[in-house]
């Protein structure tokens, strides 16, 4: 049914442009769920390795392919994003920087630090 009420509405998620602090906040949850998928994937790889060489063949081929690298790169970034924002949360829990101005200042540092850590990890991975 079409919306006919002409009165102004309060900000709605589909219309309201999320500020960066809010985007980082919801991304923390989303990356948390991705990290859960990541550790389940890790357990599956470990279980395949525990089953012997033949059992590990598919996991090994997948993890050495460009598709596997792409997935692992995504998992790495999601992990570091949650890691960096998690440290931000720990500081807030200790009462440090728990005000709007500080939150606005530290928000952009999260994706930047996560990107740097991801790149450093992958430089190590490719060099090894």
């Amino acid at each position, binding site marked *: 049914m079409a919306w006919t009420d002409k009165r102004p509405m309060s900000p709605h998620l589909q219309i309201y442009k999320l500020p960066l602090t809010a985007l980082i906040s919801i991304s923390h949850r989303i990356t948390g769920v991705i990290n859960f998928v990541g550790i389940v994937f890790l*357990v599956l790889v470990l279980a395949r*390795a525990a089953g012997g*060489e033949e059992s590990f063949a598919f996991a090994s081929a997948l993890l050495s392919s460009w598709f596997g690298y792409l997935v692992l790169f995504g998992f790495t970034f999601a992990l570091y994003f949650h890691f960096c924002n998690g440290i931000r949360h720990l500081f807030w829990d200790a009462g440090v920087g728990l005000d709007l101005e500080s939150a606005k200042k530290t928000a952009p540092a999260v994706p930047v630090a996560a990107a740097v850590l991801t790149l450093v990890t992958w430089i190590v991975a490719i060099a090894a």
Partner: protein
Amino acid sequence: MNSLRTPLARVKGMGSAGEGTDHFWLQRLTAIGLVPLCIWFCFSMASLPSMDYATFTAWLGSPFTAVMMILVILVAFYHAALGLQVIVEDYIGEKGIRTASLIAIKIGCVFFAVTGVFSVLKISFAS
């Protein structure tokens, strides 16, 4: 007597939920534990020259790697169970689906954590 609450209930400060700050505190405690564990995990994995069977199992065969990997699994799944619980509690209102999801999260996390630890031990003891 001004209140119907017993002195014991008042001093425990648990409220009607019957629990205190356990969830909040363990979420933070596991988060602090995961800071060094995540760095070790990422860089140790990244340092592997390849992902073939021999390299992977030799890596897990080292006692230090095995212990660290078991810690990663246990602490990460504990942290994940607490985090997923909050997400379900926030977004799922319907009582039946909500309770079923909360049970599924706990059972799922325990299942995968036990599978992970067993796998690490099996590889580690075999090499």
